């Protein structure tokens, strides 16, 4: 299959890296995330010195405006950024692993299109107006789209055909996007709300929503970690994986559950954010080699770094306004992605 750039194929060259180095890398990534998060607390329309930020976290004074900004606005925003970014990174790693497709991502597989359709439908027909009300519809839309994609993939399964799932996802996107457009063209009010939801942003999101949805996030993360080994086996191809004693159907449906939980929650909280799910696993694989448990851990961290970093950058470029994180992540991530793809060893056919 021309399009597959499987971990299996890379395995001999990207020989197993030493665990010590990988743990060190993970620590470095964690430190980077902490640094970016701190910047997220300090920078913005009102820049706050780092010592004041630390003060605000450790020893908050009531009535201090800087402390109020840090604690009430920026901490929730950064926490949401970390959670959503990590969820998207993990989700992308699971998707790319289980479909053996390097361009699998929640956007291309139709999940965000499903979420968008559900949100637009909820705004138009049910009159749901608040961001908090939209959450469950985004979640449900993601889940339905994922089930349709996986379901059709399972009905017509014909052996080793990773590209099929991507094709099905793109077709689901086409259908859902068309329906969404019909609604948007006939209803100006819905378009007014929707166009701000659809770019994906961390501003004005409610920490309460994250808390409500956190069980889903945690469940999704645990399932992802649980299927790490199965993903390694799947990377070798269906036949070999079966030969190694893997129960492929169970692994596939577990991965579907993880994807729905992670991507559904992320999209519900922040709107459809493209690119993190595609790029984070790519970058992770460059560091870790083929072992999926490492890929998953790195993807989560890198996803969080990317999203929080994009959010900070979006606040800096357009002061005193801001550019939505979803837009920044695509504009900054695009060139990085292109550089990574160009730098990769040519894929042999």
């Amino acid at each position, binding site marked *: 299959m021309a399009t597959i750039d499987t971990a299996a194929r890379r395995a001999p060259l990207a020989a197993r890296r030493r665990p010590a180095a990988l743990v060190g890398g993970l620590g470095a990534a964690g430190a980077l995330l902490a640094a970016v998060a701190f910047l997220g607390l300090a920078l913005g329309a009102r820049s706050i010195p780092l010592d004041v930020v630390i003060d605000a976290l450790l020893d908050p004074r009531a009535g201090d405006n800087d402390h109020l900004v840090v604690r009430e606005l920026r901490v929730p925003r950064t926490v949401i950024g970390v959670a959503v970014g990590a969820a998207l990174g993990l989700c992308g790693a699971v998707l790319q692993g289980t479909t053996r497709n390097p361009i699998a991502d929640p956007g291309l597989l139709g999940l965000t299109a499903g979420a968008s359709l559900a949100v637009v439908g909820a705004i138009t027909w049910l009159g749901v107006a608040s961001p908090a009300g939209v959450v469950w519809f985004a979640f449900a839309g993601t889940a339905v789209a994922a089930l349709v994609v996986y379901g059709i993939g399972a009905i017509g399964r014909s052996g080793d055909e990773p590209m099929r799932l991507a*094709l099905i996802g793109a077709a689901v996107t*086409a259908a859902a996007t068309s329906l969404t457009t*019909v609604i948007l063209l006939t209803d100006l009010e819905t378009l007014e709300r929707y166009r701000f939801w659809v770019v994906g942003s961390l501003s004005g999101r409610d920490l309460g929503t994250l808390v409500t949805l956190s069980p889903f996030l945690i469940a999704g993360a645990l399932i992802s970690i649980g299927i790490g080994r199965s993903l390694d086996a799947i990377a070798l191809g269906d036949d070999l994986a079966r030969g190694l004693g893997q129960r492929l159907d169970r692994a596939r449906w577990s991965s579907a559950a993880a994807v729905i939980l992670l991507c559904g929650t992320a999209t519900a909280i922040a709107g459809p954010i493209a690119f993190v799910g595609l790029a984070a696993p790519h970058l992770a694989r460059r560091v870790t080699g083929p072992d999926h448990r490492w890929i998953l851990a790195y993807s989560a961290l890198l996803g969080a770094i990317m999203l929080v970093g994009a959010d900070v950058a979006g606040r800096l470029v357009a002061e005193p306004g801001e550019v939505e994180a979803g837009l920044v992540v695509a504009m900054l991530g695009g060139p990085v992605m292109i550089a990574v793809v160009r730098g990769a060893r*040519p894929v042999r056919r």
Partner: protein
Amino acid sequence: MTTGEAALAIDVARRARTAGRRRTHRVELALFLLVLGIAALSLSLGAYAIPLQDVVRTLLGEGTAREDFVVLDLRLPRLALGVLVGAAFGMSGEIFQSVLRNPLASPDIIGVTVGASVAAVLALLVLGLTGIAVSAAAFGGALIVAVLIYLLAWRDGVSGPRFVLIGVAVAFMAHAVLGYLLTRADVRDAQSAMVWMVGSLNGAGWDEIGVVAGALAVLVPAALVLRAPLRALALGDDTARGLGVRAQGARLGLIAVAVALAAVGTAAAGPVAFVAFVAGPIAHRLVGGASALVAAALVGVLVVTGADLLALHLLPGGVQVPVGVVTGLIGAPYLLWLLATAGRGGAG
């Protein structure tokens, strides 16, 4: 193997090939008849319904003044533009997908038509242009993005996976620019930009049809001439080389033709959503894996003209939506149905 057996094997192979070709021709004929049927319907149906025999009479130049106006000035331009644009998108998608051996490599997914949208929306919202200037901007946008992707994907040649990945990355960036422009614009302007972005056959006039037809008169023969290298490339670079095809040169030529087709179609009607994406895979599954350039063009025509018919007449309450809204709605579910029922994928 005795000579008898060898002769038998050759005979079997030849018969299989003839059967494949016959199936291709049957499919093409069936698609053509369907297109004719839809054409007849779209010339005859409408607020002022005209019976088929009167449509034919009008086309032959013997209609009343009123029939002349409705058929020749209102309905025929729309149909003609739909046919041209559908063929352009269908062929463009099929060439992209075959050359890059990847069903996701269609111009609407790798960012070529999104590039056109960015240029057009910039022209509409920021520069305040209208009409032909927007089309020119779209054409330029598609070309610029395509050249950009090609150059970025070049590394001792262009390979399918790298091209698609870089195309997807470019598409993400273009979508981000679109999102930025649309959230900063007045909501009414955003909506009119969206109408352009889904693609529409409204206001088709003979002047632009002439331009599009002229462009296709060059591009379609070019695509048909390159059909043999296209078929070889679809089998893989090594096979193509074995068949005496210079892989990189042939690929560049084919991609250039495909980009030009997509750019012409987009300039004329906007990026009619997902026609290029669904036409190839549907044609492949109907034809059965063989080369499907003509069938893909016909599927493209069928999707666009059929979708326009639906968009104009079949929605309740006299709501007329742009054709691009419906193309995704009829093309995508049909493709899904094919994917669900097919035992083995040709293009997939």
